[in-house]
């Protein structure tokens, strides 16, 4: 469903993403992890057609995002870490707008269902300025899901959500995956990635360090079978070679533990 071949993005001479290749099949949830500045958001932006790749190819549902952007974009939804909404459109007007853009004839039924599911049906006539951050996030999700996308990208999906919101978001992601959507989640929350992702791709300095199922990744980075969690894998995979840096940062001194 998502095929990436040799994706490279340069900003001037700075290489943000370097020769990245991977694919995500329908029903798969891939976790995109890496330290700050690894190129995760740039990758997602290239994958969603927001910025053009400098080199390489991205195909969404068989459509090249550069050559056939309309067909590719019709199949995808991109949820940014900060909900991006129009400040003068109400909740329902957002759905109405998206419905026309994506040509969703029965948007009223689907939209009402999504608002119910996301528990913001009572905010139908509210402007974004009247919504909490979590509610804004829910509205952005409702807009993104209105056209039933087959490919979904999440950039830090749990930011600003309360515990119940986090639980619902995880359930929602898994539900979409079970329905056949190919999903990529970029997050620093390794426990989230560990919990819901069937595959993991670790990025560092724009390059792929490893890509595979959690088992495959664990196998590569563990010293003994079963001794490693994703957090340790992450530190091992992203530590600088030859620095003798500890795999996991040392705990805080006694009395400063949080």
């Amino acid at each position, binding site marked *: 469903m998502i095929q990436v071949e040799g994706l490279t993005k340069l900003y001037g001479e700075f290489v943000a993403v370097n020769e990245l290749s991977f694919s995500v099949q329908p029903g798969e949830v891939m976790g995109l992890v890496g330290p700050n500045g690894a190129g995760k958001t740039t990758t997602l932006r290239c994958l969603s057609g927001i*910025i053009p790749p400098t080199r390489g190819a991205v195909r969404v549902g068989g459509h090249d995002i550069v050559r056939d952007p309309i067909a590719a974009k019709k199949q995808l939804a991109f949820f940014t870490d900060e909900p*991006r909404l129009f400040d003068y459109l109400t909740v329902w*007007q957002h759905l109405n707008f998206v419905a026309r853009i994506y040509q*969703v*004839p029965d948007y009223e039924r689907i939209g009402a269902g999504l608002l119910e599911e996301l528990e913001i049906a009572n905010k139908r006539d509210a*402007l974004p300025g009247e919504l909490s951050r979590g509610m804004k996030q829910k509205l952005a999700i409702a807009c993104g899901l209105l056209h039933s996308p087959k490919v979904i990208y999440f950039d830090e999906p749990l930011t600003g959500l309360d515990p119940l919101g986090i639980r619902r978001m995880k359930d929602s992601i898994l539900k979409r995956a079970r329905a056949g959507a190919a999903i990529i989640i970029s997050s620093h929350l390794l426990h989230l990635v560990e919990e819901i992702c069937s595959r993991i791709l670790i990025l560092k300095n724009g390059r792929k360090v490893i890509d595979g199922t959690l088992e495959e990744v664990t196998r590569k980075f563990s010293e003994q079978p079963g001794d490693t969690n994703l957090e340790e894998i992450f530190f091992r995979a992203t530590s600088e070679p030859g620095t003798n840096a500890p795999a996991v940062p040392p705990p805080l001194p006694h009395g400063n533990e949080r």
Partner: protein
Amino acid sequence: MISALLYLQYHVFRNRLVSRVKRLKQPKYLIGAIVGGLYFYWYFFRYLFGGYAGGRQPPVNFTFSPEHLQLIELFGALVLFVIVVLAWIIPRERAALTFTEAEVAFLFPAPVTRRNLIHFKLLRSQLGILFTSLLLTLFSRRIGGNALIHALGWWLMLSTLNLHFLGASFARTMLLDRGISNRLRRLLVLGLVAAMAVFVWIWAKRTVPGLSSADTTDFNAILDYAQRVLTVGPALYLLYPFRLVVRPFLAPDATAFFAALAPALLLFLLHYLWVIYADVAFEEASVEASQKLAVRLAAIRAGNWQGAGKKQKAKRPWFRLTATGPAPTALLWKNLLGVGQVFSPRLWIILFTVVVILGISLGNIGHRPNVSVMAAILIAAALGYSLLLGPQLLRQDFRHDLPLADVLKTLPLRGWQIALGEILAPVAVLAAIQWLLLLVGAGLIFYLPGKYEALFLAIALGAAVLLPVLDWLLLLIPNAAVLLFPSWIQTGKDSPRGIEATGQRLIMALGQLLVLLLALLPAAVAFVGVFFLLNLALGPVAAVPLASLAATVVLAAEAGLGVMLLGMLFERFDVTEEHTS
């Protein structure tokens, strides 16, 4: 403790200045700074401090007689009086010192006394006051006088007013705490002002000889009367403190300035003591004010200047948007909702009513040709201004939506479709306003002197056809500019300020004018060609609308190409590159 606050203020100012200087390494800021600097020098600085040696003359150099100075002082005092009265009437909120959210986060939980916070606020406001004083001096100096005296005079006036506003807000809070509502306070202040006005009026009626009906047309006679009323009797004493504040600014020389300075400084000091010793809780209201400020700044940084000052309200769409049909209509629908924040249907109804009433009124006075001519000139001027200012004021297009460019880029639409949808709303609104004006103008034509009704109607018809396409073209240019040079246009994140930003805007304005002239050239050629041909065969009444139609066709072709080009620009627009530049 105050030293820490001084440290903060100093470093905020210094770092801001350093970052401004550092960004001059980028050619776009350097060129802007040079052009902006030349502009400020040419129009203001060369008249400041340096005098007028070398044969240069100030644009106007007034010399005032003592009587005129007294009159100016009185009017200045009257203006200050009105400002102060309004400060006691209009505001309704509790006292709030405006801090940034960071200042609230760091200073409010810190062991800083309330008095120190006030000192900090006063200190910080001095930056703005000094800058405003300099700016006002640049203007006031152009009519003559000593620059230093002007600068110090402005500073004293603004600083005293600033302290008074703060003191009034503290007093307002104290009154609210004592159960005196805003309404009661306003009634009391208005009652007091009314009593003073009645007192002065009765005194003037009994003492000062009134104006004869002939005098009411003589400006000097009115001035003399105003001077007599204001310089003798109660008004003189009522306005006395305000005159003390204005007097240093108007001092003709250093001796007069120092003589006027002492009482003005005493007033300033009294205000300072009032503010410092007023023990009023302002923290809670300040937190709220800082949040509002943050929202406003965020709106401005997001390019939403029009919505920055007020709370958005949900608006009813201008038309029903179905789920199927051309996708650019969705963008038009969305942007009209944005325009609706300013141009609500209610405003349109009011505008239409005004137009109808104006039309009827003009019909009634149609027998007075001068009035009809004047009204026609006003309408023509309004149409001209709509072309000049309309595209700058109606910004519900890329200039507003550029901060959401990443969202627009994920939409499954071609670049030209997004460009078309983005530009439609301001074109539609501007054309509607112009058609309303043309409607009034067409009604007026029958009351104009002479026998040119048919020709004027032909011109109005031609304008009605031409204007929407012309608006389209006028709006395409700034939209293309914002995609080509986003940081040069007043939109997006961190829009630049300062002399270099002024220079950038000047360059952009000149560039846009040049592009417009080039774009208009083929249409003008088409108009002139068709007009001359048809004028010979059919006469001007038929030639004007047909020539306008020919020009419209040319402009429409350009506008169509322009939308395609704008779409290409949007497709190539790299959000990340702009943010990282």
